[in-house]
């Protein structure tokens, strides 16, 4: 492998039902940053059937070039034709970096492609940088420059590792959705669109799609929720949980509660967090009007970020909260909901 032959940052522009997934634009945004550091371009690889129109949107978010692989075999996602498409693009265009979203599709596709072309793949990255490997010079070992340094959590989030792929190209990573930022949209921006079809001949690796079932979103189990808005006795009444429901709706969060709330009959048992309820570990845990009895803390202290709102500044919940606000939840929570609405509206 002649590493010097490999140039440019490529990203997989995931689309579903001919709509670009959010991760596609996030990867274009991040790819653009990396391309700048490497003094090269970012290329989006658009794979599907009848998806040519999406190229302009990729351009508007910063893609310099779009490689379009358009074929009827690619209408619905299937591992084999998609893997063949990406592997063929890599063989032909030889990018130095290839990013894929760590979505259900990307985490299926990425490993298959990396295995086919024999390179490394770092999963679920939360940070990508261009730098040296080894990071600090090691006697007797050549320090390589302009390497992709891929950072990811491991061991259930207990450790953080930075990975490099010095001897193989492209350097491949899947990137966790929602972590990288999209670039600001530039209306009317155009990218060079290049069509490429490697040919698709079904073989034993092609699976047959018998049915596509779009599932209705069920209520989320509190153990699976990414954000929990959890209320305690301090909420005051079952009716007043409305302010928590509103906050949860804005954040796409799920409402949970403490034992006192279940005992009072305000909420069902399956929403209870704590030793006698469920153990949760969301990305964000809002503890609202929860004093923080030991048995409650045992069920939620592993949450990534704990935000507590309580009027009692001696409440034990503040011992585990990352951010504790001593204040009146009846005022803070509705105001927070309104602000979030505004913030999220601006962002879109």
């Amino acid at each position, binding site marked *: 492998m002649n590493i010097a032959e490999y140039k440019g940052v490529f990203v997989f522009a995931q689309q579903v039902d001919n709509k670009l997934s959010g991760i596609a634009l996030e990867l274009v945004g991040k790819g653009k940053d990396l391309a700048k550091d490497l003094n090269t371009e970012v290329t989006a690889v658009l794979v599907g059937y009848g998806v040519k129109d999406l190229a302009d949107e990729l351009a508007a978010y910063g893609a310099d070039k779009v490689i379009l692989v358009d074929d009827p075999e690619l209408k619905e996602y299937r591992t084999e034709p998609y893997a063949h498409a990406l592997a063929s693009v890599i063989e032909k265009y030889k990018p130095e970096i290839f990013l894929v979203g760590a979505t259900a599709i990307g985490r299926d596709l990425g490993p298959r492609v990396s295995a086919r072309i024999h390179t490394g793949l770092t999963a679920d990255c939360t940070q990508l940088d261009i730098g040296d490997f080894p990071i600090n010079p090691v006697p007797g070992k050549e320090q390589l420059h302009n390497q992709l340094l891929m950072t990811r959590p491991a061991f259930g989030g207990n450790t953080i590792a930075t990975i490099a792929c010095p001897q193989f190209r492209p350097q491949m990573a899947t990137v966790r959705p929602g972590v990288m930022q999209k670039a600001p949209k530039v209306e009317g921006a155009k990218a060079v669109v290049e069509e490429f079809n490697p040919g698709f001949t079904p073989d034993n690796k092609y699976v047959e799609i018998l049915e596509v079932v779009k599932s209705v979103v069920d209520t989320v189990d509190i153990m699976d929720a990414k954000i929990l808005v959890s209320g305690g006795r301090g909420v005051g009444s079952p009716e007043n949980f409305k302010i928590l429901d509103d906050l949860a709706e804005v954040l796409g969060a799920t409402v949970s509660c403490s034992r006192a709330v279940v005992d009072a009959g305000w909420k069902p048992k399956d929403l209870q967090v704590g030793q*006698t309820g469920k153990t949760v570990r969301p990305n964000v845990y809002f503890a609202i009007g929860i004093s923080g009895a*030991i*048995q409650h*803390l045992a069920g939620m202290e592993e949450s990534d970020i704990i935000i507590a709102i309580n009027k009692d500044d001696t409440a034990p919940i503040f011992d585990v909260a990352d951010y504790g606000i001593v204040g009146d939840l009846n005022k803070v929570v509705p105001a927070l909901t309104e602000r979030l609405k505004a913030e999220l509206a601006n962002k879109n």
Partner: protein
Amino acid sequence: MDFMLTKQHEMARTLFREFAEKEVKPLAQEVDETEVFPRGTVEKMAKAGFMGIPVPKEYGGQGCDILTYAMCVEELSKVCGTTGVIVSAHTSLCCDPILTYGTEEQKQKYLPDLASGRKIGAFGLTEPGAGTDAQGQQTKAVLDGDEWVLNGSKIFITNGKEADVYVIFAVTGMVEKRGRMSKEITAFIVEKGTPGFTFGTKEKKMGIRGSSTYELIFTDCRIPKENILGQQGKGFGIAMHTLDGGRIGIASQALGLAEGALERTVEYVKERKQFGRAIGQFQNTQFQLADMATKVEAAQLLVYKAAIAKNTQKVYSVEAAKAKLYAAEVAMEVTTKAVQLHGGYGYTREYDVERMMRDAKITEIYEGTSEVQRMVISGALLK
């Protein structure tokens, strides 16, 4: 002398602990509160093979040793005393006597269903006038043609109304023994649904409240002649020998309760703060915990020794009595101290130690009170 458990036993403990934590612990409080027999848990235990651990494979059991069975009762009791005694009474008091004294036909007929947990077993010896003094039996069985006719009642029967197969003791006559007339007692297998076999009142108990403790009533209850267990007149020996085994189960239950209470307390004293520091930092707490842990381990060694003795010795009455006596008293002491170290919270039903203390008390009473165990132990010393 080797105090190391084998890898098999270690893995079995992992299994029992995982099952107890996942399937039993979440229900323990509710089972206690509602006094409802945990039928769903028994079905899960049946599927996992817990209802026939020491029963040989040829009879549909797991073919494991008594130590494995004792560890199962121990781990279940760590989180729920009720669940522990369900397995103990079923295995030690029903499967075991059928296995030991049953004919091949009886074993083939009853053990596969019992060992797989499709059916539950119970044991009926105690009567209103015959507790510690088992000779006080009043229930009678009279042979009438090809059937035995049972009349009388049994009380405090664990798994009472939930069981399907019962080992029942009844007086079948009088015999002369060393110049005195005494009752001839015989064991029988009685199936639920036999006409004349009904249930009386359900006991409301201090602890192990989810176990189904009932009075069994026999009114001209006719059972086939072949349902006699062992020989006619050998019932007293069968009862005593069965209880030797049962005591290992109850000792395991007591041990589990003590261990469970100790575990909860260790967690609690690290979290609970008074006077600005965790109460685990006070020497009083530390010394109490040290005593508790030492006694718990001593109890464990006695229980395991008795369990191994049942596999390796013909007679293990003294080992079983010592294990049960000590483990039960340690359970009572450790759970009481656990409540004390929990303070006011420990007295509330919010915390498991309150239930454990109530559950522990029965281990000093059933399947031979602590006083009976002392009689057995001293009797052997002074023989």
